[in-house]
């Protein structure tokens, strides 16, 4: 088999396995899996910026929240229905990432981390400040009339799973196409050596801005879908925690791998889910897992696998 055939086979098999899982898993875990798939879309977006382009952002909660509120506010205030609201969330995430990028990409490295963090905090505080329209820290419930997509009630398990799966599959395949495209090669070139890439004729600012905007589209879509599928929009999704989570997923699964964000989200979700049954100090376990990761597999699970066995893994 050629590398291309192997790559497509693997990714389509993973998608098929995830799809079939809804019939095999008990409802509790099927709902978890829907949640994980949406979070994985968020992490895939984060991975496009961080894993492939080398942009370590601490502000992706802002883009996730932009999607969530970009979906939720028109539903609440303007009576929009699910599909236009979801699209509004997608666009809001991408547009805000583009605007933030215009300013933040004047910096690099640690400064970029701080500037993106600052923007995200400003966004969070803005949500609280404008509580008349945003519901402040209480948030608001997405009207059930709006949670109907193509005639399916998204509050039911099957419709929710199928919707999450559709977005996840689309996000995964788009990411695979992107990173295997000429533009994907340029993103990696920026990560590896920006000055060299400039001297091959690429404008680093433009490339990084595009990558960040695409990353924001993913985050926006994930935020919109999360609010729509689980029926709640709240400012807690704009906190620093939601900037750190996708980073943890990506680091655990493997930065710069297409399947890494999903694998990371899956493992981290269940690590928290299981350990929090036993102890309140579940974050301690998460921390220990991360220390172990840094010590023994700094490239994440799939990054290590690629280094040792599957050289062709994208």
């Amino acid at each position: 088999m050629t590398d291309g055939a192997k790559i497509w086979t693997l990714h389509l098999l993973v998608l098929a396995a995830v799809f079939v899982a809804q019939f095999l898993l008990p409802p509790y875990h099927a709902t978890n899996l829907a949640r994980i798939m949406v979070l994985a879309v968020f992490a895939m977006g984060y991975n496009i910026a961080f894993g492939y382009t080398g942009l370590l952002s601490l502000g992706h909660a802002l883009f996730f929240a932009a999607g969530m509120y970009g979906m939720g506010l028109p539903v609440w205030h303007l009576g929009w229905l699910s599909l236009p609201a979801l699209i509004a969330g997608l666009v809001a995430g991408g547009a805000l990432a583009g605007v933030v990028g215009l300013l933040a990409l004047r910096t690099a490295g640690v400064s970029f981390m701080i500037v993106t963090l600052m923007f995200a905090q400003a966004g969070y505080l803005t949500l609280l400040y404008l509580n008349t329209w945003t519901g402040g820290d209480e948030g608001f419930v997405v009207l059930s009339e709006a949670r109907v997509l193509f005639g399916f009630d998204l509050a039911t398990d099957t419709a929710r799973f199928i919707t999450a799966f559709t977005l996840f599959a689309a996000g995964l395949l788009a990411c695979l196409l992107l990173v295997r495209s000429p533009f994907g090669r340029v993103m990696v070139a920026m990560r590896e050596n920006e000055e060299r890439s400039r001297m091959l004729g690429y404008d680093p600012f433009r490339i990084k801005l595009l990558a960040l905007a695409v990353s924001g589209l993913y985050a926006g879509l994930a935020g919109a879908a999360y609010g729509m599928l689980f029926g709640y929009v709240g400012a807690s999704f704009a906190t620093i925690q939601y900037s750190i989570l996708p980073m943890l997923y990506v680091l655990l699964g493997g930065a710069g791998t297409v399947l890494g964000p999903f694998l990371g989200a899956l493992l981290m979700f269940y690590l928290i889910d299981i350990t929090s049954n036993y102890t309140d100090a579940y974050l301690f376990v998460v921390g220990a897992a991360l220390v172990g990761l840094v010590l023994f597999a700094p490239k994440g699970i799939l990054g290590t696998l690629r280094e040792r066995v599957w050289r062709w893994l994208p």
Partner: protein
Amino acid sequence: MVAVIEARGLTRHFGGLRAVDGVDFRLEQGEIHGLIGPNGAGKTTFVSLLSGRIPVQSGVITLNGEDITHLPAHLRVRKGVAYTFQITSVYPRLTVFDNVALAAQGRGAGDVAAEVAQALSRVGMTGLDQSMAGTLSYGHQRLLEVAMGLALRPLVLILDEPTQGLASGEIDGFKALIRSLVPQTTILLIEHNMDVVMDLADRITVLNFGQVLAVGTPDQIRANRAVQDAYLGGDHAAG
């Protein structure tokens, strides 16, 4: 002769240091032009001004008559001014193919794979395309750097110390390679290895303390008293 690149009164000071101080320079179509000078003479700063890596403080640079003085580096590359780094600067964690493809695809090459194969065959690296660039020998990394420059199909290729660190056998191959590039490509060669410059260059510009000390053919430069005093030293002048 037609000037591909022409610079007039080019100046760049770093604080009190006059790295490049009012340099006039002509790079003529199809020539191999050597740029020499003692350490700290301003050679690398000068070509960094030409390639746009460092902004010009005063002076004018034209490419085929067009003013490119304030054009950003990546746009100069697109217009045909390619720069290969003094310290090998390939992407070590990408394959040889990807390294060269990055150069070829950016200028909108139709068949990137064919362009890559051609550039690699010019430098004699056919068959290495799936190797990780970081695992190549130093000599091959230097050649890969040149292949990336070639895949840009530049009008002007600026080579900054290309033979530094190469074995003498590799240097002969390198010289043949450079000769095969002209006259389609014009070469500006910064080089410490005097034998290589004297052998390859049609004309040589000598920089000293940021200023042009002399311009001429290798024979004229050898015979130039000021150059001998400033740079080449007694032994070389006698020989």
